[in-house]
């Protein structure tokens, strides 16, 4: 594939992305005419002040969160698949989401199950701090292990084991908790993109930007990682340092997104595969921007469906992403009869 056909693909992706953003902003539980949506965005007169509020302070932050979450998870999925040279890897293989779950479980369920006082953390940021602290601790553990263990595959297994361990602790906590607390925890684990304040979106965007810069800095080493650990070393890539950089980027992206939006499965695993079906290259300089756009598009579509336009119920985003995405991946693989990796 030559460069001009890449630019065509990118043009199509960009157009789809813009359509998805507009659709996401226009559809929701409250039916708002498209002219009022646009009026709110450009700052002119809107028929109802509540509509303006809904568009600018509810839907717009939600759309931005969806873009960040989709792109961020997809990028960390790509990084992990390359690092581990394993098509089954995703953003959470290092145990980041289980770490966040553990933090939130201790915060919500710990009061009853362990008699812990979480009063110190009460207030609007308590849950986010608990989730961040959980994933940060797991991250520290993984980095500690990564500097000792030379084999990348061993790191993958260790990540999975950490995940099992934390989910076991969460199960024990859940077993002894009250129904209401359990319900709160379950609702957190459903994931949700909405209801973030602008300051929340700001912090999320900052983490996303740093994670992305680290990923861009790793572009060259990522290409060499695909050839294998040993080969990467011979190519002169500073192996341990690059590996650490990739792990930090992933953790920052997936950890901050999980802290703010809850665990969102599937996107990170599926988007890199979807993109590789469309763009047949192993060069990360092409893959990375495509994955960023693809993740945002898929997440926006899922969120629009999860809002079930014009009804009072919203569906859990965590379930929708898999429900929408999995058949697409299966269909693509069956059609192409082979995995491009």
């Amino acid at each position: 594939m030559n460069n001009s056909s890449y630019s065509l693909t990118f043009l199509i992706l960009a157009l789809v992305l813009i359509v998805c953003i507009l659709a996401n902003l226009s559809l929701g539980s409250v039916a708002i005419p498209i002219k009022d949506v646009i009026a709110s965005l450009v700052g002119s007169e809107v028929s109802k002040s509540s509509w303006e509020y809904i568009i600018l302070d509810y839907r717009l932050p939600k759309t931005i969160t969806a873009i960040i979450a989709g792109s961020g998870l997809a990028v960390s999925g790509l990084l992990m698949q390359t690092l581990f040279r394993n098509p089954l890897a995703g953003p959470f293989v290092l145990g980041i989401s289980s770490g966040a779950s553990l933090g939130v479980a201790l915060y919500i369920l710990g009061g009853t199950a362990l008699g812990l006082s979480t009063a110190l953390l009460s207030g609007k940021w308590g849950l986010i701090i608990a989730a961040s602290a959980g994933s940060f601790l797991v991250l520290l553990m993984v980095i500690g292990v990564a500097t000792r263990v030379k084999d990348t595959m061993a790191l993958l297994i260790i990540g999975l084991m950490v995940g099992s361990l934390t989910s076991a602790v969460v199960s024990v906590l859940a077993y002894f908790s009250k129904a209401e607390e359990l319900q709160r925890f379950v609702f957190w684990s459903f994931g949700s993109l909405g209801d973030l304040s602008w300051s929340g979106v700001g912090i999320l965007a900052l983490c996303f930007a740093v994670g992305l810069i680290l990923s861009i800095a790793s572009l060259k080493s990522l290409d060499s990682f695909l050839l294998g650990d040993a080969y990467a070393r011979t190519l002169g890539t500073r192996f341990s340092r690059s590996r650490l950089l990739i792990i930090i980027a992933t953790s920052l992206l997936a950890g901050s997104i999980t802290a703010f939006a809850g665990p969102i499965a599937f996107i990170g695993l599926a988007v890199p595969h979807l993109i590789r079906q469309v763009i047949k290259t192993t060069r990360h300089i092409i893959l990375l921007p495509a994955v960023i756009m693809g993740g945002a598009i898929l997440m926006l579509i899922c969120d629009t469906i999860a809002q079930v336009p014009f009804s009072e119920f919203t569906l859990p985003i965590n379930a929708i992403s898999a429900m929408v995405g999995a058949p697409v991946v299966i269909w693509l693989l069956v059609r192409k009869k082979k995995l491009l990796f």
Partner: protein
Amino acid sequence: MKNTTLFLIGILSLFISCKEKSKKVKNNESQGTSLSIDYANGFSIKQYTNHTIITVTEAFPGAQKEFKYALIPRDSSGNNTDIELSKTLEETLKSQGVDAILKTPLNTVVVTSTTHIPSLEMLGVAKTLKGFPNLDYISSPLSRKRIANKEIIDLGQNESLNTELTIELRPEVIISFGVEGENKSLNSVERAGIPVLYNGDWVEKDPLGKAEWIKFFGALYGKEREADSIFNHIKTNYNLLKEQIANIENKPTVLSGGMFKDIWYLPKGDSWQAKVLEDAGGNYLWSETEGAGSIALSIESVLEKGQQADFWIAPGQYTSYAKLASDNPTYAQFDAFKNKKVYTFAKYKGETGGLLYYELAPNRPDLVLRDLAKILHPEIITEDFTFFDTLDE
């Protein structure tokens, strides 16, 4: 020129009147009178000349923060000076750090727990209820009728209130029973300028304490006196019956709760359910356990202690002996099962399947007490059951 002078005089007089009024407000601060709250521990109400302050001290278990809500009576006359006064008052209150300022009586509310609905109905203000998460939980015939007429809209689920619909509805207040900060959609509704009030009726351990929260709603609607007399009626009924029962020597033993998977959940000794059982002249076998929630026990330990209990009250959602026995044969081992002395509150359901007990019982402990007394000491009660009934075959 003339106009300018007039304008200046106007401004000046406004300034002076503001100053006077702010003085007035300050003077009033010290003269507040507390309304009597006898059983509830979670809130207090203090009335000042121009406003009322509700302080919620225990909005959720272990709450460290007090919530203060200022209520300013609406001015029906529309007099200008009063608007000035209320503006100054609002500024003073804001500087004191109240969590919300509300104009009373409220015209539009959203409540989030079915236990809030009986209070609204008893105070005669059910028509102000405009939205509720998951309408199917509501059982009361009056509110069901309003739902059928589309006067109450469904706002999704309590744990994730539909933010868009709530903002579009713009209620004057949302009354929540949750834990501050853990409900993302409530945070976002608060940012949109809709105040969220925390109602801690569910935290109260005393049966009458739960019912006393009607005074919280009374203050929100300027119906303090009505709330007071409704509560006094409930309190008098409850205490009279309790005294009458206190003279009865025979105290039958009582078992409660049921299993989920293989764990038996039953109310702890300090819970309101345990207290009503004791007040109804029962010997609740787990009255020694500390705490207010429910306790999780193994089937062995419950069988050991409760096998010979005279009565088994509230076996979860069960309404028949057959279902109990088929779900778990162990249930049939209890004497109360063999002697058909199992009573449930699961038979009285609203149109859409909500249980009347969950909605009304916390507000009417007098009726719960009467039902339990009828079960344990049938000779002293002639009235029909409100919540409880025997299990079907």
